[in-house]
């Protein structure tokens, strides 16, 4: 188990900062059978895993990236649109009218 963990750790290090990391990790541990592979996933996502925080963060990010970025895009739009859709306050209509009146006086 200790040895397996070490190997897994290694595999995860590779997958951490690399988009093609999964295949690379598999190549590094070719003898893992299906059952152990399942363990790999469960070990790596287990809260008992005492891997340092940056690795945990990287791993979480990979899985969440797409839906999360889509969510961010929608929310950004929502923040902007909320104000965009408000009725123009009278003060601005008034202001532009005054500016126009001044303009007409001048000419």
């Amino acid at each position: 188990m200790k040895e397996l963990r070490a190997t897994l750790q290694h595999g995860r290090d590779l997958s951490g900062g690399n988009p093609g990391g999964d295949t690379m990790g598999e190549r590094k541990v070719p003898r893992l059978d299906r059952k152990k592979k399942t363990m790999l996933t469960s070990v790596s996502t287990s809260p008992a895993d005492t891997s340092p925080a940056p690795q945990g963060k990287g791993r979480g990010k990979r899985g969440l990236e797409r839906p999360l970025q889509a969510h961010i895009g929608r929310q950004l739009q929502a923040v902007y649109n909320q104000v965009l859709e408000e009725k123009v306050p009278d003060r601005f209509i008034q202001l532009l009218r005054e500016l126009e009146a001044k303009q007409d006086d001048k000419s």
Partner: protein
Amino acid sequence: MSGAADPRQELLTLVPKLRAFAMSLCGKPDRADDLVQETLMKAWAKMSSFQPGTSMIAWLYTILRNEFYTEYRRHRREVPDADGVFAARLTTRATQDGQLEFQDFRAALFSLPADQREALVLIGASGLSYEEAARICGCPVGTVKSRVNRGRAKLAELLTPSAPDEKETAQPAWRAAAAAG
């Protein structure tokens, strides 16, 4: 030239966009509207420097942005309490589902440095191109891109939910992120 008076007519129709941008910069409704007012007055006064055929909203955003940063430098300490005002404003408003999520997002957005938030809003919400945003911000396109990326990454980090059973490991990461930011 008859065209000279026309751009001014456009100002009123662009007020909503100006307000939306101003709000995303400063976060305070009253101040945002003061910024818009300043912008409209400046734009009106120097309308002759607007080049017909170019994007008027980009031109107005440039003026608004300059106003904001001039004031921002003057009253730097006033800025951080924007979140509270936003939250208060929100709770009196919509009661849809996802409102909490929206509030969380807002708080996260306003915790970003102004330059990143501005880049995110210009690109992600107002629909401008990177080139237009770069011209507005007076910086290279690459700088806008990196601000957008850093802003997105930071938001992703702030918004990533931590499952209850991961609290033990999630918390140090959260604190480390807060310390680094």
